[in-house]
């Protein structure tokens, strides 16, 4: 891994069109500003990983048919109406 030391206000360039600025450094936190083209989406890694995992889980668990799911949905909706 390439490790660079940067100060507040300095930046690095990745490829031709990705720029990462050090906006601020306070104690243990670093604020970064990122400029990247739309085909290079930027995410906080831990959040990105959670969504990735959930997507993979959802695809793996996709039911054979949705009738059970739509039945409970319908029941819930109609049940809710009857209670009122």
């Amino acid at each position: 891994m390439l490790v660079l030391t940067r100060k507040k206000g300095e930046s690095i360039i990745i490829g031709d069109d990705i720029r990462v600025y050090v906006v601020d450094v306070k104690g243990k936190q670093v604020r970064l500003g990122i400029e990247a083209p739309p085909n290079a989406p930027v995410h906080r890694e831990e959040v990105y990983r959670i969504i990735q995992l959930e997507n993979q889980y959802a695809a793996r668990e996709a039911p054979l048919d949705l009738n059970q799911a739509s039945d409970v949905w319908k029941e819930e909706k109609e049940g809710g109406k009857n209670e009122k």
Partner: protein
Amino acid sequence: MKNETNLKLKAVDEEQKIKLKTTRFGEIEVPRENVIHMPGGVLGFPGYKDYILVPHKENSPFLWYQSLDDPALVFVVINPLIFKPDYDVPISSALMESLGAEKIEELELLAIVTVPKDRPQDMTANLLGPIVIDPVKRLAKQIVLDPERYSTKTPILPQKK
């Protein structure tokens, strides 16, 4: 494996339709113009960029989000506003630009649904990573929201105690 799809993709150019054969929902025909393109793919599935939406059935809130790149890849999706009317998705101008979208009010939202086996009442929707679609350009993107506000496992039905 029982729950594996067996889709066979057959493009019928002259009719501008795509024919799909599937063990899940039989053979379907979708107009080619209904294909939704995701330049960034679904997160975790970067190589799968083209999808079609297949409504489950009448009076069902669910749709299938079927990959055209992998016959076995399918998601269950729902319009999250149906069960969470106050769902608030911030749309940046960069997102509008990447979708080629002109009007914010035309954008459509989908949330990927997870249905636990044998417990459909516990199904959840991923509100942390909704899919935003521009229905005019047929471009879509899965975006990432604030994890302090939204979760990948938001119950779709009211929780029973």
